[in-house]
């Protein structure tokens, strides 16, 4: 038979042993354990004799009075009406909706204002391209006329007659092109066209058929070679201008 150890006896004394009934049986059967348990009970019973100092009925009131002045009052929770939250939400919603609508309207207005300018720019760029094409064509024809004039054979009426007709046609066009050159802001072109104008006028207004002397005079006096060179230079510049105009119309930079 195993004896109960002190820890088991203490547990049994406080009613916390594993098996109370079995321990009781063992204590009845085992004199040594019963004696040990009796001694334990006697010792622990001694400890219970401690007396508490008397406290009268007013003790609680005394405690309260001693601490009441040290206690801060809790802040009452803020009241909130159920409708207030709803109204707040509605107001916030309305403000947000107004902001969105305002931004939409402002965007539309801005787009409307921007559109004519863009259209105007596009139209202006298209017009400039047309002018450049017309000018190019005019310079081509002028170049051909000057080349023909340079190599003209005064004896051939078949060659001279069309030159005069072409000069008349170019003379009319030259005035328009002169204005166009001024419009696109090309002073070199305008000057060249100014130089071309007397030659064209002379050619167009020659009475009768062009003879050898007239052609030679025109070639010399009107500096036809110089004009031809000038027209060729201008023609070579025109493709660059056309390319620049196309780039502008596509939104690029020159």
């Amino acid at each position, binding site marked *: 038979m195993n004896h109960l150890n002190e820890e088991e006896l203490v547990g049994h004394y406080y009613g916390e042993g594993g098996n109370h009934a079995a321990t009781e049986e063992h204590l009845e059967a085992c004199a040594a354990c019963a004696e040990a348990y009796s001694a334990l009970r006697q*010792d*622990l019973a001694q400890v219970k004799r401690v007396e508490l100092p008397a*406290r009268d009925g007013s003790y*609680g009131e005394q405690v*309260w009075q001693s*601490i*009441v002045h040290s*206690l*801060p009052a*809790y802040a009452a929770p803020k009241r909130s009406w159920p409708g207030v939250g709803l109204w707040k939400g509605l107001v916030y919603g309305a403000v947000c909706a107004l902001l969105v609508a305002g931004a939409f309207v402002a965007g539309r207005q801005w787009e409307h204002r921007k559109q004519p300018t863009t259209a105007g720019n596009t139209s202006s760029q298209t017009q400039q391209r047309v002018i450049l094409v017309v000018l190019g064509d005019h310079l081509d024809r002028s170049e051909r006329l000057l080349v023909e004039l340079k190599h003209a054979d005064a004896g051939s009426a078949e060659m001279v007659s069309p030159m005069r007709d072409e000069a008349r046609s170019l003379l009319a066009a030259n005035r328009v092109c002169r204005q166009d050159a001024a419009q696109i802001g090309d002073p070199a072109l305008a000057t060249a066209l100014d130089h071309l104008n007397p030659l064209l006028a002379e050619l167009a207004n020659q009475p009768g058929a062009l003879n050898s002397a007239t052609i030679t005079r025109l070639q010399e006096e009107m500096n036809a070679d110089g004009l031809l060179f000038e027209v060729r230079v201008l023609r070579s510049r025109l493709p660059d201008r056309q390319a620049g105009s196309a780039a502008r119309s596509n939104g690029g930079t020159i």
Partner: protein
Amino acid sequence: MHCMGQNDHATIQAILSGDKEAYGALVLRHSHSLFRVAYRITGNEADAEDVVQEAFLRGYRNLRGFESRSNFGTWIYRIAVHCALDRIKGYKVDDSSRVGGETDPEQDQVQVADQAAGPERLLLSGEIEAMQQTAMQSLTPTERTAFVLRHMEDRTSEEIAAALGIRPNAAKQAVFRAVQKLRIRLAPLRVKI
């Protein structure tokens, strides 16, 4: 003092709503039980009164943390146990130099014999209590508190563990160690009685 007829939970709601005076009802209701356990743990009347006041102050400050499903009496009781334990822990440093945590029991036996004029003198309750008090002071704060809660307050190991913030088995062990030490200390008394 108002709100006396209301239960503790209703009183706490009133306090948290700004009615400070309502706390007085809880103080009146639980002061005696707190003093009892505080005195048993500290072994000193003045300390016990301080512990009661401190416990109620701590309780008031932490009232928002009190869970409504708990029992206020149990909650404030645990706070008081903590306060008392803190107090005797603070004293323990001084006591250890004065009394000694692990003094020789034989020495105590001699002291008792020396102090006693005879067996009749030992029967005087005052002297027995003084000896028991000395024996109690030889325990560690945790052992003393666990023993008081188990032996004098009839608390279970689970309740002791909850009050001290330890595991139930540790609480049981603390009680057992306290009993062992007390029996050794009180052995001279048993012989002479």
